């Protein structure tokens, strides 16, 4: 029988309370979908420190340009979204999968469940994926997503956002989140955005307009870095 080797890679730092949002009564769907029992704290093992590696070979340049996936250009304001995937100690996270999905310029997802009375755009699927480069950089070209209503409360509207999914180097770095745009008037009214209660932490979800990323006569640029869990300084010696 094989006897696997004991864990030696450095552990991941624990996440401080207040970063990832807990249950939020203002976001009604959380009521029946959050456990009421406390989480059980367990040590990290090789199982948690390793993690998924997506088969990258099938990803091409069109996958990160949501404006070139169909016969014609989608409607709406073309934008560039660029940033780096880092860990909390500022180390770049190269060769990791970054995926996005979003509503079109009218605020409608190309998804059967979305019943919002806004037009679909036959030239916009609203999904993209890419792999970070050696400096942890990713870049998407897309359309600025529209605002849309949802059923959470009377006259509820989501701030414009792009969903992000990041694998990172291990199971513990897996992150699914949403990127917002600076100055959105719906910020104070959105329970999902405000589920992150510390304003400084919440601000990490908001991209910055960047004139240096902006391409003349073509598209505005927004910069957004994604920060994943970092490692303990010293490896665990078993």
């Amino acid at each position, binding site marked *: 029988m094989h006897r696997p080797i004991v864990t030696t890679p450095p552990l991941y730092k*624990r996440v401080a309370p207040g970063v990832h*949002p807990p*249950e939020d009564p203002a976001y009604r769907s959380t009521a029946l979908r959050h456990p*009421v029992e406390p989480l059980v704290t367990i040590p990290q093992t090789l*199982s948690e420190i390793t993690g998924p590696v997506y088969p990258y070979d099938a990803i091409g340049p069109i996958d990160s340009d949501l404006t070139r996936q169909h016969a014609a250009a989608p409607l709406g304001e073309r934008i560039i979204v660029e940033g780096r995937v880092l860990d909390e100690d500022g180390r770049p996270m190269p060769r990791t999968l970054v995926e996005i999905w979003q509503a079109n310029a009218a605020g409608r997802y190309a998804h059967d469940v979305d019943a919002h009375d806004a037009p679909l755009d036959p030239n916009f699927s609203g999904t993209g994926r890419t792999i970070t480069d050696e400096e942890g950089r990713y870049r998407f070209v897309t359309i600025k997503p529209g605002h849309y209503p949802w059923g959470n409360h009377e006259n509820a509207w989501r701030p414009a956002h792009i969903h992000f999914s990041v694998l990172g180097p291990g199971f513990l770095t897996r*992150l*699914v989140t949403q990127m917002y745009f600076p100055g959105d008037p719906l910020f104070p009214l959105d329970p999902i955005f405000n589920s992150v209660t510390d304003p400084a932490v919440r601000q990490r979800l908001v991209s910055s307009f960047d004139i240096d990323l902006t391409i003349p006569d073509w598209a505005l640029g927004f910069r957004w870095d994604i920060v994943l869990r970092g490692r303990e300084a010293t490896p665990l010696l078993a």
Partner: protein
Amino acid sequence: MSGITPSQTVGPYFGIMLSGRNACRQLSQGTTGTRVVIEGRLFDGRGNVIPDALVEIWQADAHGHYSHPEDPACAAADRHFNGYGWAHTAGDGGYRFETIKPGRVGAPDGGLQAPHILVSVMARGILARFVTRLYFGDEPSNAEDATLALVPEQRRATLIARCADDRRYTFDIVMQGTGETVFFDV
């Protein structure tokens, strides 16, 4: 130094993202190990099924090796096995993975863990993913697993997949209430 990016809900529309991925295939003809089917349903705090959840799994190969550079035995990992699986629950709250039973992975204390699969649950109404572990109901080594031992005894059964036979396991996930699945802080 900068702070960790907070999680936000995966929402109801992640299916359009998944549909652009390659099909989720963990196995190929050359994969070593016992083929198993893992299936189950997700339930909310009222016992309603959750038809819009993203269930992800991560597991070792049949010899307990991870195909990942931080496993010291990575070079020996099965090149014909992908330890990462994902599924969108169906209208009946159900999910299904066709995979292999993982081998035993080393534990931090130098011993061996019982065969297990890590599970992440995300959904509309879940702001940050919940993680749990699946163990196999017909596995004697569960009794000596250090992680399982940290779970209050009366709740351990929520982590153990029931086996219909040696190839088919049922693992229901209850987010809240009676029979609530144990979730971990790790």
